[in-house]
């Protein structure tokens, strides 16, 4: 019995170490190893005037995937532009939270209507971001969030008409 438990314990430890190594490898592969230090204290959450959840950028870096959907609850743009950027982007239109595609096809909202985003892909959120650095200032660890944002913008820029590269 004791031997079985030792084997089980060892196996679990190996699995755990492999999992942790995979996270480290992913963070290094996304060139943002500092994301490993983020302990999700949420201090940055309420600092963005565009309602972007900067923790989403951390998650995107940890996952190595710029297509992760993150909160961006205060970006105002025309529905047609939202649909052109990403039809699956969740927007608040007519008091409902629906995809940009559904707002056009099912709710029949005019394409020229201004909507407010709710959830967008991390790469698109990076495109909307002002890069004012408010999230970095709010971070208690001083993590360089703007690096991840710059990288996301550089890799796959959003539609030039809504990009905020001013």
């Amino acid at each position, binding site marked *: 019995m004791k031997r079985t438990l030792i084997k089980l314990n060892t196996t679990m430890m190996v699995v755990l170490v492999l999992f942790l190594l995979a996270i*480290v490898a992913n963070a*290094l592969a996304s*060139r*943002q*190893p*500092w994301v490993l230090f983020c302990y999700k204290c949420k201090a940055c*959450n*309420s*600092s963005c*005037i*565009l*309602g972007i*959840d900067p923790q989403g950028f951390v998650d995107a870096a940890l996952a190595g995937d710029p297509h992760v959907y993150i*909160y961006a*609850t*205060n970006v*105002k*743009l*025309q529905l047609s532009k939202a649909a052109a950027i990403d039809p699956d982007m969740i927007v*608040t239109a007519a008091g409902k939270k629906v995809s940009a595609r559904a707002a056009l096809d099912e709710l029949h909202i005019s394409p020229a209507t*201004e909507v407010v985003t*709710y959830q967008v892909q991390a790469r698109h959120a990076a495109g909307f971001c*002002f*890069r*004012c*650095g*408010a999230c970095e*200032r709010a971070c208690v660890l001083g993590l*360089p969030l703007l*690096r991840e944002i*710059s*990288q996301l913008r550089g890799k796959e820029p959003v539609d030039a*008409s*809504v*990009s*905020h590269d*001013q």
Partner: protein
Amino acid sequence: MQVCLMISKSALKVSLILLGLTVAAFIVQKSFREEFPGNYPKFARPVDANFEFFNRQVRIAVPDELNDFRVFVFAHDSRGHMQAIIKQVVDGTIEVREGDYADIDVRFDGSQVAGFEILKRMDNYTRETDMFNALKEARVNGRQAGIQRCLYPLCTRCIEGCRSVISGGDLPLEMHRGPDGAIQPVYSKGKCPRCGKCFVWCPVNVITNTKSLLGK
């Protein structure tokens, strides 16, 4: 003795792994190093805006060069606070409709910013200030309203750049409320060390590079 040797071997292995990770971390982040040209900065002029009031919306005409930019539409209230909403310029026009709530409330101490509050936290407004009404009241009562391109006090990157190279409070760059009510940078060229951080870091191109050592 044997136990000590075992521990020191393990410690060495762990130290080597950590060292390897640290080196890898430095290598992958090397490309994020910024460069700052040693030139003087130049500053964008305040935005000329033409307000047209309708029953349930305000249409603001701005220069075409601001197309696709996001700017602050602001109005000062009876308390002397500035209420502002972020709006995108589409075809040289900004529309503020009834029911568009202010995103930020800025307090002043004289011409300088004393503090500010972001009014939308994630998906909820902590206070709902209708910007259409705020603009209308500002017009009726002769208070200041307009367009601000600079994101101060939300963004303070130029000031942070200045502070990173100049000790003490005598900075070449300060932010003041201008005669039009908008917050704008006030620059003192004589104090400027030409570090270049302000224009490299300015996210909205209010501060740009003169590309000149003389600042002309």
